[in-house]
């Protein structure tokens, strides 16, 4: 087990270094000069050059990367040009809001998807099944911005029961949470349904029924437990996406998370902040995957011993 963990940690470091190189080069390929963004349009070439010097952008890209990497290992990811504060501080400062949104979305997705998926599988080909499949299809098909705006229109504008944008209370969390969680909810519903359908035909389920266990005990006590392994894998991977993929949802709902920061940073060509956001999100993503793998090994002991 220790060897497994060490191996995975080394892989994780490799991924993070790879991401840092990739994002470092990518932001520099973006058209638009951050030095110009910080100056009035009429700024002279000398002023732009002076600004580029002060930002270190006049150095060759490999040199810039070495400077960036040497500072990054010491925990310094540069200073955000837009926020005028250390980039790490800006990202970490917005992380709680993103975690909150991701946590809510995840809870929403699981609380809806698992019972719906089970119902759909147990009542196969019934009206409930069709409704569940319809819900799953809708959840996976609707773009986040469209769903978000539709929810705003219905619940904020027409019914006036929930706030349209902003943050600060549970009520503010509901619409962006549902928007962000809809895709995961659909995915998990389908996963639970198909997994359960497979398992319900297994011999041990028939045995359980034969020995007189009730439907509830058979479904939840025996069958569903075996759907948990793929579920954990998918949910783990999707949690990473919830953290990093909330840019659109956060922008539509003016939610002050890392997604909003990333959107702002890209628009402002704030190189240090784009790098810090992507790098820190990738670290979280890698860590979550690592945790999922370890959890996976814990839940299914066969993996540990493989």
């Amino acid at each position, binding site marked *: 087990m220790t060897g497994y963990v060490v191996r995975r940690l080394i892989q994780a470091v490799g991924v993070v270094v790879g991401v840092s190189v990739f994002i470092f080069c990518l932001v520099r390929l973006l058209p638009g000069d951050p030095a110009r963004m910080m100056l009035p349009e009429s700024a002279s070439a000398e002023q732009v050059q002076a600004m580029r010097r002060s930002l270190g952008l006049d150095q060759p890209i490999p040199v810039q990367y070495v400077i960036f990497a040497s500072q990054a290992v010491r925990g310094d990811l540069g200073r955000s040009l837009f926020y005028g504060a250390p980039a790490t501080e800006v990202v970490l400062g917005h992380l709680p809001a993103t975690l909150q949104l991701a*946590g809510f979305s995840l809870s929403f997705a699981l609380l809806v998807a698992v019972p719906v998926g089970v119902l759909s599988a147990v009542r196969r080909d019934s009206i409930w099944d069709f409704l569940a499949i319809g819900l799953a299809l809708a959840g996976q098909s609707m773009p986040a911005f469209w769903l978000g705006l539709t929810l705003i229109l219905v619940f904020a*504008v027409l019914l006036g029961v929930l706030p349209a944008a*902003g943050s*600060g209370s549970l009520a503010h969390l509901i619409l962006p949470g549902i928007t962000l969680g809809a895709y995961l909810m659909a995915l998990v519903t389908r996963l639970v349904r198909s997994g359960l359908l497979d398992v319900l035909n297994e011999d041990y389920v028939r045995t359980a029924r034969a020995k007189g266990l009730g439907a509830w005990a058979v479904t939840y006590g025996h069958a569903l*437990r075996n759907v948990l392994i793929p579920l954990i894998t998918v949910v783990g991977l999707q949690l990473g996406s919830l953290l990093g993929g909330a840019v659109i949802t956060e922008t539509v709902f003016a939610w002050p998370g890392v997604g909003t920061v990333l959107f*702002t940073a890209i628009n402002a060509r704030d190189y240090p902040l784009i790098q810090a956001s992507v790098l820190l999100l990738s670290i979280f993503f890698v860590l979550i995957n690592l945790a999922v793998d370890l959890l996976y090994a*814990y839940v299914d002991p*066969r993996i540990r011993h493989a």
Partner: protein
Amino acid sequence: MGFHPVSQDGARRMVGRRSVSRRRFLYQTVGLAAAASLLAACNQPGPTSVAEPPKPTAAPPPPTTAPAAAAKPAEAKPAEAAKPAEAKPAEAKPAAAAPTQAAPASKPADTLLNFAKPGKVRTKDPQRFYGLNEFVLHRNVFEPLVDIDQKGKLYGVLAESWTPSADGKVWTIKLRQGVKFHDGTPFDAESVKATVARAKDNDKSGFKFVFKDFEDEPVRIVDKNTVELRTKIPIAPLLNNIVVLYMVPPKAGDNRDMTYEDAVGTGPYRLTDFNIDQQYVMEANADYWQRGLPKIGKVIYRPILEQSSLVAALRAGQADLIEGISQENAATIKNDPNFKIIASELWQTDFLTVNGEGNPNLAKPGVRRAFNYGLDREVIARDILSGDGKPLASYPPRGILGYTEKAPIKTNPYNVEQAKKELAEAGLSGGLEAELKVPNGQFTKGKEIAEYVVQELGKIGIKLTLNLQEPIPALESFTAGQYEVGYGGSIAVTGDPDRYLQERIVGDLYHTKFGDEEAKNAIRQAATVVDPAKRQELYEQAAVRIWEAPPFIYLHQINWNYAARSKVKSFTWAANRIFSFVDTELA
């Protein structure tokens, strides 16, 4: 993909001596995650909901008979330019939104205005950036010496009067007395000196360019309440150039990193909360020098970047006033009695810029005139902009010094036959081809207007290929000269044409290769002559010459829509989009 069951006994053996079973572990994990999520949601510090009730604030002093009286400006010299306006900012409320309700206004301390616009304010420091989003917040917390009203007329804010010297190089400014910064520091000549000192000769300042022709000692203190602004050459629009230079207290002068975060100004509101991504909370300054103002106890400015979300916030009651609403969205609410659209006429002109360096055909004056004659600006203003614009074919726009319709200049010179004739005389009766680059989403209806331009000019043989591009690289390509025809726009922040004309015509920022030296000289001269009548004459001369070989094809002057809930009784917009809530009133 079935998963084989693991018997419970087997599982327990594998887990070994662990005291927690897998089932319990999973239950606990899921339970804890759900509980943590809900707890976190409920415990986020400091609600930022705009729907919260306003906290009671100290009420501004009761209204007195009139705003602080303005001193008469010093005697005008013969060459005086600016006709110093009587400084009565509180009275400068031209053409504000018409009140829709006669109900008496609430007491300031009880009132809350939720304002939202699609732009974030990057800093509390009023001199770090030269940007519109920053100016709107800072104008409410800080104040300039002078400002401009909707008619383009200067009025004193922290200056009571101003007088240029005979040679136009020294401007003596009498400062308003009895004004205090939010921390109690008196506003005086030292404040002006400190403000200018940190903005000038500082690479980190967004205002360095404003002071490029100032003396090494730009501010000389005459006495506690009088300063002299000293320049190397006469600068006619000097006061216009500093309408967004907001005064900071002397202690901020030491901060040369442009990270002055105290937000201590003299403005009608104190900045009590500043969260770049969420909200900027301003509470009425109880010691504001204009008695009876401001009329609102608290203003919460929230950046909402998405246009649809912005309108939804208004409709859902989360915002009382929003800025920058599109015509389509305006149409959805203008018939609703709960809302009103407040249209402002901006000093913003949209234009086509023609590069004179690459395609030789585009450098020909006849071709540019053909562009000018080939476009029906009435169609653009009336049909494409749905009335949210006015035809314009020369610079500057209506409302600021230099605007002219002197022959041969017309606001809509549309004449297809003339356009074809110009092309033929330029030896291009067979037409020409070029690319039209448009910064996508940057200008109101930019794409639609560009499509119309392509269609209309195609009729006279100018075949343009539309290239929609991200705004930042598109605009940068104009300044780099890497384009053929571009779609641009400009707003006269200072309310004076000098800056635009110096940059775009004389300085040839967009590489148009406009070479008429007489026109350029007239513009240069107009910048140094302080008599406005003389300046008008010079700008007209320049405009007529520019008309003959236009480097830019001006299209229209744009309107800018605000939308408000009917409780917003009055709101004074600004033609440069930098407004103050000082006299905004709620029903």
